């Protein structure tokens, strides 16, 4: 692992006779802000600040990568990075309350100290997508690295590097959408086409789409072409029904980009559990094209 400078904890450890960078050692971070995102209160966004500001430079990341959140005394969880590399001074993650670590994390408070290990994995293929149309299709709480991607592309320094940006994002109900203020702000812009949808809405003022993601994709996604890439991230059921729609629309399998999840521990391709065939989701992924996935066993 190439590291230009050692993190604070590594320097502390150097005094104990260590010189090699330890890829299992997290950067110490402080919880700076906690936002409850959804009406069921199962999703919270955690904003972290590095205890040693130099660690932020060492943590240089790309949209689509993830990190291990290290809750000292509980363990680590692999979570996609929700902030964008263009946002400085913090790193943001949105975490669903599921298991031991994430449940404990939900009970933590601003100011608490924990660790952050990464960035890990590959990213969305930003060089390939340069100068192309990008269609983002997301469902439920899998919208985190997609938020990172949108913020990254909309940054004034980057927007001209991409052609049309379309976003199809669905959740069960309006209250289950992540980042609602940002969604509303993106709706008002003319350099991104937002297609927000919910499975059902009981809010009479709901002014966006109603319908499942595959249906809205069929209605709103741009025509397929060499110049158009689709990034899909969502629950398996959404992917299962969206992929045939994209097929029907003529999207080539190497133009459909997906991000996988598997149980992970090390995050660096060593502990052995997250493999799909010969690839490790943590190190060789999590981002694969559909063309790649069709040559691999369906173990995800």
């Amino acid at each position, binding site marked *: 692992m190439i590291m230009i400078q050692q993190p604070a904890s590594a320097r502390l450890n150097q005094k*104990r006779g*260590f010189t090699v960078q330890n890829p299992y050692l997290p950067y110490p971070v402080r919880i700076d802000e906690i936002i409850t995102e959804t009406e069921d209160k199962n999703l919270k966004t955690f904003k972290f600040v590095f205890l040693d500001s130099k660690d932020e430079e060492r943590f240089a990341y790309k949209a689509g990568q993830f990190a291990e959140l290290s809750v000292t005394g509980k*363990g680590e969880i692999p979570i996609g990075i929700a902030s964008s590399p263009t946002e400085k001074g913090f790193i943001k993650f949105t975490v669903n309350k599921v298991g031991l670590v994430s449940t404990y994390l939900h009970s933590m408070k601003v100011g*608490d100290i924990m660790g952050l290990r990464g960035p890990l994995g590959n990213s969305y293929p930003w060089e390939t997508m340069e100068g192309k149309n990008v269609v983002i299709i997301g469902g439920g709480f899998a919208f985190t690295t997609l938020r990172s991607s949108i913020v990254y592309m909309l940054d004034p320094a980057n927007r001209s590097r991409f052609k049309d940006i379309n976003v199809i994002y669905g959740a069960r109900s309006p209250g289950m959408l992540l980042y609602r203020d940002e969604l509303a702000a993106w709706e008002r812009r003319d350099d991104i086409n937002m297609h927000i949808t919910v499975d059902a809405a009981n809010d009479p003022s709901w002014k966006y789409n109603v319908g499942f993601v595959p249906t809205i994709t069929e209605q709103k996604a741009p025509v397929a072409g060499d110049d158009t890439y689709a990034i899909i991230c969502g629950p398996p059921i959404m992917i299962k029904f969206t992929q045939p729609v994209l097929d029907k629309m003529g999207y080539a399998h190497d133009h459909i980009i997906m991000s996988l999840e598997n*149980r992970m521990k090390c995050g660096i391709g060593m502990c*052995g559990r997250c493999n799909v065939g010969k690839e490790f989701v943590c190190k060789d992924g999590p981002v694969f094209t559909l063309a790649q996935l069709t040559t691999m*066993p369906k*173990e995800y």
Partner: protein
Amino acid sequence: MKVFTIDKKDWDAGIEKTKSSYQVFGPVKEKEWHCFKALDKDEQPDMTYTNTRLSPKFLVQPQTEPMFTYTLDESQPDHHILKEINKDASPKAMVGIRPCDASAFLLVKRNFDAPQYQDPYWLKAYNAITFMGFACNDPCSTCFCTSAGCGPFHEAGLDVLLVDDGDRFLAKSLTDKGDAFMTAAGWKAQADDAGKIEAMKHAAESKIGSRISTGNLKAKETTQIYDAPFWEDTAFSCINCGTCTYSCPTCWCFDIQDENRGNSGVRLRNWDSCMFPLFTIHGTGHNPRGAKVQRVRQRFMHKLKYYVEKYDNGIQCVGCGRCIRLCPVNIDIRKVCNLMNDYDPAACVCPA
């Protein structure tokens, strides 16, 4: 490269001498079985042994290995910040390790010493060891090393190859580390009939009775072998006990856990096994390898297909035969390997 001759009456004294500069490990009989352990003063390795019941991988990758310590006591300035544990990197010698087990470390090293990341725990432990391998004059009936890229006199991964020749040992020093160990033991007499090793090697190799075929594995389509009909049959009797993976010298998978006592704790890693459903279960309850057949297939696919494709350097198996000897339901990797290697979906006439 030098070949030494060690009179067996000088052996014990030489081993004793090395203990002043090395922590010496060797095979020792405990109850019914041999195992590798650190030799006490005046304790000698049992050089009449066949092989240890479990592989010596635990000397490089302990079954439980502390990685970091931490305090949860918020009155401490470094609370919740992980601190590294100083690991012992003093010189160690593994005397009597079988060539297959030493060679296994080289296969595992590809995982822990990768271009992008290096595992400091594994590498530090491995690099501290001098390997004095012990050639097998009489291999077991379950050994298939010669067709698994290894052999009873295999030298890769060894610093010294030791050969039992009646009332003496022949010792072929292969590296600087090996030379240093020989010097530390005070064994200096050069053999004038070093060529004898080659003859003994051929004799031992001809005793290996079982073979596997691996030549077609790389070229086969992953998804075709994955979907082959023989997995159900292969996995039928498996009880997912994990004995195969725990005894295997080339299995390295691990889990990471935090363990707390009061306000202090340790992050440690433990051996894990692809045989266990918890290995891959998602937080949501979804499990990509939730069924037994999927886990059995994973073990063989990893060793005999994914690894072969990933590193293009042979199978992830040295043919030690432990999994065959210890499997409570007689699943035999030799049979599975041949099924995979010979599988031709076009020729398959199984009732679909």
